[in-house]
């Protein structure tokens, strides 16, 4: 299922012409990868990996991917913020969101 999400995201990035849709495509692809990573850590009948007082340690889901994904989500957030701000500036300069019209660089 994650691969479907991921391919939808990649398709959006490559095919769509509107800048904002490209950005959303990036977001979709990113969530797909993060989701996949978390699923990697799944153990059958596992519980949430949190130790509480007076509780016996039973089958736990792998906590390591969760820490990693937290970091990856934050990185994704930073990247999205940057790309959106650049998109805003582009709109300011070019007056359009269509990437076929934003082609000053040639060769």
């Amino acid at each position, binding site marked *: 299922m994650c691969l479907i999400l991921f391919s939808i995201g990649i398709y959006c990035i490559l095919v769509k012409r509107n800048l904002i849709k490209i950005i959303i495509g990036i977001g979709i692809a990113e969530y797909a990868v993060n989701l996949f990573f978390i699923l990697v850590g799944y153990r059958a009948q596992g519980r949430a990996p*949190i*130790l*509480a*007082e007076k509780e016996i340690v039973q089958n736990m889901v792998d906590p390591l991917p969760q820490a990693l994904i*937290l970091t990856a989500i*934050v990185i994704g957030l930073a990247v999205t*913020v940057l790309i*959106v*701000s650049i998109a*805003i500036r582009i*709109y*300011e300069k070019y*007056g*359009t969101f269509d990437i076929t019209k934003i082609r000053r660089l040639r060769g």
Partner: protein
Amino acid sequence: MTLIVKTITRLTVGLILLYGIYIVTHGHLSPGGGFPGGVIIALSFIHLMLAFGKDLALKKLSESLASFFESFGAIMFLTIGLLGIAGGYFFFNFVLKGKPFNLFSAGIIPLCNIAICLKVGAGLFAVFVALILLKVPIKKK
């Protein structure tokens, strides 16, 4: 913004801020920690801005102050790490570790969480302010 929104905001902003601080400080005991806590704290300020307009929100937390907090949070995080060198390694856990499951346990992790929360909260708020303040002249082609 309508009166309903303003009233509700007045009531809930403080609660949101408090909730964010709760998540940050209990980061080592329950899910959460620096990142999500920082986001929630930033949200409380953004909520203010959305309901009351940017002038009031900027009075509460001006942009230069936000930028200061951001760098300060990062430097605090790095300092905690560097101080660990005194104990022998980068990021060494040198502060007292109390009994597990207590609030004041787990060495440097709560301090790290607070540093991160400062940085993330200030950073998000600064970004939001920057995006709002930018006046986009819309050219018609």
